[in-house]
């Protein structure tokens, strides 16, 4: 039985036992996969719980369902590890009400870039096969191959499905809610060792952090963004950019009389239009960098193939180091919502508070 079949059986059993009333999981389309919400056991076969593509971030979908009011039905959401971390992060930002939701996540083989999938389809079974052989597939997205947490984490989500390093996939609980759920399902919790799978990614990540960093200030940033269309797709796909309307789309702030533009051009020996292209990216880093989960959807969304995750992921990583914060992996309060009295003295004064 494949992992997908196993999960579908799991879902059907859960429906039967009355443990759930709805499921959110990927479902195939002509060229890709989207998330689907089903409420009946008969519809389970329409799902592909583990999809080879991540077109949207699933946590973003749950946000849409529960932002205003808690989930009225018992919902099981099948999320990738990065999505489950997003889920946890969005709960902190009051964007998801976790009541009545069970999150199931699994050892992730990574996903293929949505556009690549369209022209060269593959299956999750193939990706899982490669994962089981202990190899990171060369087909998966850059952000997946450098993922810091490619497997379920205790406390993030409720139920984990272990796939690597085990003959038969094993379920285990990640929270008390999950423990109860598995007990209700009559499933014995199993164990597997995911450390080599994680290490493979972490090694990649270390290398990536060193090698792909954008350097050189203005020159580096301008080169990196030189083909940017200013379409703001990266922001639209970013699950952490949950604002209803982005600050950078407020025209009352960025609209000026013609003379202002000419003055600018005078002062700066010519300006590039639109003027707020780079500022948008810098501004977005300031707003969401501390909570960047690393799903890499910004990069997938870029129509010009700018490897944006190198910008948001690496700067985000630096920011998170400053605050000793790992988004979505534990209950720490996001840096933008918190402060301490005795901290960050290295940012005071010209030379870190010392003279």
């Amino acid at each position: 039985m494949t992992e997908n079949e196993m999960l579908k059986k799991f879902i059907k059993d859960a429906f039967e036992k009355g443990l759930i009333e709805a499921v959110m999981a990927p479902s195939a389309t002509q060229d890709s996969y989207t998330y689907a919400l089903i409420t009946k056991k008969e519809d389970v076969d329409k799902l592909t719980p583990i999809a080879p593509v991540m077109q949207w971030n699933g946590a973003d979908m749950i946000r849409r369902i529960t932002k205003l009011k808690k989930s009225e039905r018992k919902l099981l959401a099948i999320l990738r590890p990065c999505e489950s971390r997003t889920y946890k992060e969005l709960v902190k930002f009051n964007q998801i009400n976790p009541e009545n939701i069970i999150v199931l996540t699994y050892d992730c083989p990574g996903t293929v870039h949505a556009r690549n999938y369209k022209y060269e389809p593959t299956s999750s079974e193939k990706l899982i096969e490669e994962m089981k052989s202990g190899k990171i597939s060369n087909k998966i997205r850059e952000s997946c191959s450098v993922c810091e947490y490619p497997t379920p984490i205790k406390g993030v989500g409720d139920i984990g499905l272990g796939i690597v390093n085990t003959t038969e996939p094993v379920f285990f609980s990640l929270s008390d809610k999950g423990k109860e759920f598995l007990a209700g399902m009559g499933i014995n919790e199993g164990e597997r060792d995911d450390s080599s799978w994680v290490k493979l990614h972490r090694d990649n990540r270390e290398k990536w952090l060193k090698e792909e960093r954008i350097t050189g200030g203005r020159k580096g940033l301008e080169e990196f963004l030189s083909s940017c269309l200013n379409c703001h797709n990266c922001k639209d796909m970013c699950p952490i950019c949950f604002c209803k309307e982005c600050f950078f789309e407020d025209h009352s702030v960025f609209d000026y009389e013609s003379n202002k533009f000419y003055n600018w051009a005078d002062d700066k020996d010519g300006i590039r239009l639109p003027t707020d292209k780079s500022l948008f990216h810098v501004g977005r880093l300031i707003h969401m960098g501390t909570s960047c989960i690393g799903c890499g959807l910004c990069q997938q969304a870029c129509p010009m193939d700018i490897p944006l995750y190198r910008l948001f992921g690496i700067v985000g990583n630096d920011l998170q180091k400053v605050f000793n914060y790992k988004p979505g992996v534990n209950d720490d309060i996001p840096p933008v919502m918190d402060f301490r009295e005795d901290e960050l003295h290295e940012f005071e004064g010209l030379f870190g508070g010392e003279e």
Partner: protein
Amino acid sequence: MGKVLVYGTTLASYRAAANFARAGHKVIMLNRGEFLWHKMTQMQQQQPRDIMNGYSKAILLQTANLTGNIEFYHNSELIDVEGGPGNFKVKFKHRPQTVNEFKCIGCDLCHEKCDVKYIPMPLGPGMRIIKNAEECVDVCPAKAIQIPQEKEEEVKVEAVVLSPEYIPESIEKFGAGLKNVKTFHDFAWMFRGKGMHKEFLKTDDGEYPNSVGFFSPAGFEGYIGSYEDQTIVFREALALKEMDPELDVHIFLKEIRLYGHNQMRLYDEAVEKGINIHMIDSISITQDGKGVKVNDVHVDLLAIMPGQAIPEDWVKLAKNIGVDLEHGFAKTKPFTFETNRDGVFVIGEYYKPTGSTEAIYQGTAIVPQVEKYLGEGKPIAMEIPRFEQDDFNPKVGVFICECAAQGFNIDVDADYVIKKDYLCLHPEEIVKEIKEKGINRVVFGACSPALRGAMLEMTAAKAGIAPSYVELVQLREYASRVGANARKVNAMLNAAIAKARKDVYVDIPLTETVKTVAIIGGDVSALIAADYLLEKVSLVYLITPEFDKVFDAPGVKPEVLQMSNDELEKWYTSLKDRVMKRAKWIKEEVEAIDGSLGNFTIKYNGGEINAGVIIIATGADIEEKGTHINSRMDGDTLHSSVSSIYAKRKGVEATYDLMKSYSLLDLAPPNAKKGEGEPIALVKPREINRKIAEMLGMKLDKEGFFYFAEEPRYGIERASNQFMLFEEPFGGIFVAGLAHRPMSIEEEMEEAGFAAQSSLYLMRDIISPAGKFISVTNPRKCAGCGICVDACFSGARYIDEEDHIAKVRPAQCVGCGACANVCPSGAAIIRAYSPTGVFEMLKEVVK
């Protein structure tokens, strides 16, 4: 409306004068110096870098300006007080300031033509003393120069409040005169105005010390002082260590007197940061090379924090007025500030050794006590005027004050540029110009807003211009006085003009309040607060199943310390009877509290009530077991102050560990020696505190006492900036008595008085204290993430469960703008400081 004379300039009297004026009474304030601050307050003597003075003085002056209720007399001396309460005839002499500090506009013309001694000060024009005032009266365009002719005045007042200034005891006996031994004041002065940096820390030989010691003589023969002595020492030691972790810092103490709420945290932190704390029984300070030896420890520099001395003039004053003293402190009627002479009150250091928190409590709690002689106060009615509103057709008029611009060539892009010699001296001309030219945005290029900002804004208001359409550019202090050039001046003005063009009309909201007070709990402080409030508020609720008994720590003043249990009981019973006659007693525990400042709903078994303000006075259980003057339970607060009174009153042979006595008890401490044992009195906060804290979103300390008005950095009890002019940031919730920390009944009286008087200020419809800086939410943009809620320190923001959008409680918003800063989507905004305006401004200011 009554009239009260306040004598002396201390933290307590600053506050008292401001509070009388706010309550609608006339105040005559006698200051013995040339200007306020000239006679130093305790805080200035002890820690000259502390900001408490600045705030207190600013609050006083602001209130004086706002209410017009305070008359100041400087260089004054009280001669005689005749008559009785309600009808005092007070004779005093005074000499006017050579420069009237209210009229002075800081133009500095007198500096050129007169013989001026100038003392720069923050928040104002600085202080000036002119030696030849007679000769140069005409120099001053503001007519602020006065001839310092001594005059005698006689005024009629209903009551007199005495608060003469403290002086520190001499440190001679501990080794003053030795090299590298300083008073704490002189030590702290090294960093004044410069910040705490290594380069300013020097020994008498001009070298950077390797080790610094502090010594507080608390517990030694003849010492009297407040907890402030040691909190200041600990704070300074920690700051030194922060500045230079390598520096060897020592503190020498006989007793630890950190008995205020959470103050032991300072001690813990000092230990943690590697500060050496030496507990000593005796002290010897001798020269040791370049430094000194304290007992057997060498330090390169030693700072001694002296206790309090009894100045001779205190004794003279008492004799003159007919007030009884004991050991130099004024005697008072039990649990009041009133002396043996009716209608004459004392607060501050003349009353008992007083820390800055207590001073502020006293300066507020005095009002209800004196008011029985003053009659009804007439607080000035505040109203929000309505203005012309036009956000789309800006017509900017720039008014340039030549006093500020000082000849710079003004070349700016505005509809009108109007220059005047002194804007502040000709408000009527400004009004005329605005009206004639149809100006609807005003940019003032003048001096610091701390000086004439409010006045200029009001002038514009008289011409129908809303405050949010007014911009102020500080040409004088930010430009012409500090070596600016025309480029900078014009960039600053153009920035303000650009912002003015984008300014929008800001409606300042008014919040209707319920005019009742709910006191939760049955502590002694609950009854005292109710007693004060019942005179002024139509309905006071007391919500408690039962009332606490009076306990055995009446206070440190001899009048109460020596009261018999019967007398104490009698006092308590009459208090309770008085309150019970008029208050509404709800004999239940609180079950739920909803709402916010102005309208709380309090539910209890069997009903609910509404109240505008809540006072928490849940009291505590006091466990009596042994004879030990116990130090701390599980938390950071010493219980010793209450215990030492217990030990004294019971007359037992006691043991102690950290401190034996405190405050006035030092005059005749309880009989105790070092040791361990079962506590003589353990104050145990009540379980209900947790429930209330949760309902109101308040914080409790480890033991379960409420945090209230604590200094944010260490969370210790100290008058922090929360004691501002406004009560609104407290959120309509006050804490008094044993719910806050272990304290004597005397101190409960002070806290209850503070809570009651502060509540009274909120018994009106509340204009948002933020003014034009009121925060608003754009619902179209708000994603309801709640970052702004975490950022708001005053609890003005919350997420509305219904539509998942952040909302603002205008009564609590103070306009700091933290919400706008943190909001990622630009939904939370300060409309008077919106990104649109700021971006326009930035464009111009960098030119």
